[in-house]
């Protein structure tokens, strides 16, 4: 005999399985999620499906917080940008939260991108080219 609370937990699990915080949706970003960039971006742009006000944005590289300034007095818009400081090669994680001006709901999200750096990218390209020459012969 299956206990009622197990059935209730299973039902709740099935219901809760799926995307959450699906209010204002992040449609795209520059840099894009999982992008590998040769040149460090000077700004970060988030594009949503509706007008939002960006409430918070944190940028971290490993355990190091990169200072980013968010203008909370900016008018609501479907596209919001923040200026970035000079970024060294490495992996960066972006965490953002925004407020929809239509329904007053909070949306949150996180994504990462990598700054490879021009020198590293050039070296990697040269390595790939060198490896391709014997194969071609």
């Amino acid at each position: 005999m299956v206990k009622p609370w197990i059935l209730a937990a299973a039902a709740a699990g099935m219901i809760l399985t799926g995307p959450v915080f699906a209010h204002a949706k992040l449609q795209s970003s520059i840099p894009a999620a999982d992008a590998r960039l040769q040149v460090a971006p000077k700004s970060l742009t988030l594009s949503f499906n509706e007008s939002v006000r960006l409430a918070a944005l944190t940028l971290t590289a490993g355990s190091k917080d990169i200072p980013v300034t968010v203008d909370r007095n900016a008018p609501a818009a479907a596209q919001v940008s923040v200026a970035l400081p000079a970024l060294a090669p490495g992996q960066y994680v972006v965490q953002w939260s925004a407020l929809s001006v239509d329904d007053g709901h909070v949306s949150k999200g996180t994504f990462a991108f990598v700054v490879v750096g021009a020198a590293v990218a050039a070296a990697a390209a040269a390595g790939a080219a060198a490896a391709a020459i014997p194969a071609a012969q």
Partner: protein
Amino acid sequence: MPFGIWDAAAILLKTLTYAATLGAAGAVFFLRYNGPSITSANRLRIRHLVLGLALSSVLAGAAQIMVSAASMSGSAAGMWDGSLLRMVWQAGAGRADTARAIGLLTAVLLVLPGRPSGWALLGAALAATSFAWTGHARSLNPDALPILLLGVHLLGVAFWLGALLPLLMVASDGDLPRMAAAASRFGAAAIFVVAVLMAAGTALLWMLLGHVAALWGSTYGRYVMLKLTFVACLLALAAYNKLRLTPRLRGGDVRAAQSLRTSIRLELLAGMSILAVTAAFTTLTGPPALD
């Protein structure tokens, strides 16, 4: 984004705000149509209930704004961050909270001295419908009809769920004829009110879902089905009260009084579950029609 402590707190506070506001408004309605037939001691208790629920609603609403700010910042410090609080306030919460507070204050001031006047009912209605001033219905385009439907739905919910605590108070004083009279008056009005609230809720749901398959094909739809399961439980209990217990009360059956109290407590549990599920899915998910 993972479900966090601030999201749980937001859902809890939203549930409390719903329950306190709709409870206060419903108790005002109850006093209006049932006032003369209940004892003065019960009328006083119900007035105190309105006052307590109104205060709870205002406090929970304010706490909800602080928790939203904390949720956005990701830390408790956000609760005191003026720019975040202002942002939440300006995004609709401020307008809804202000309307709710004005409505509840009007209702409380006019209910405390005696039988609720028309202005007290208007205040209660303003408070109950304040939830339509923000939320998903406002995101639909055009939004006039969805907001109107949500307002009608909320008034019906306030009438129904808000009557349960006053009914329990009346059912606890052992006076069978008064108990039967209160249950009969409520039951007679409830048939019409519940039909209207279900019709308004169904029409609004259709607009938010977009198509029937979204009921099982989306997270939002699955939450709605869980809510409808609790609504079915509530309807079954209400039907049992009206068709079985109320006639037995009229016949002087003392055991029916105890059964009615138990049934009303179960209705309260089902009602709180409905509000909690509603708070959860309106916080965590968006309707498919807005995708």
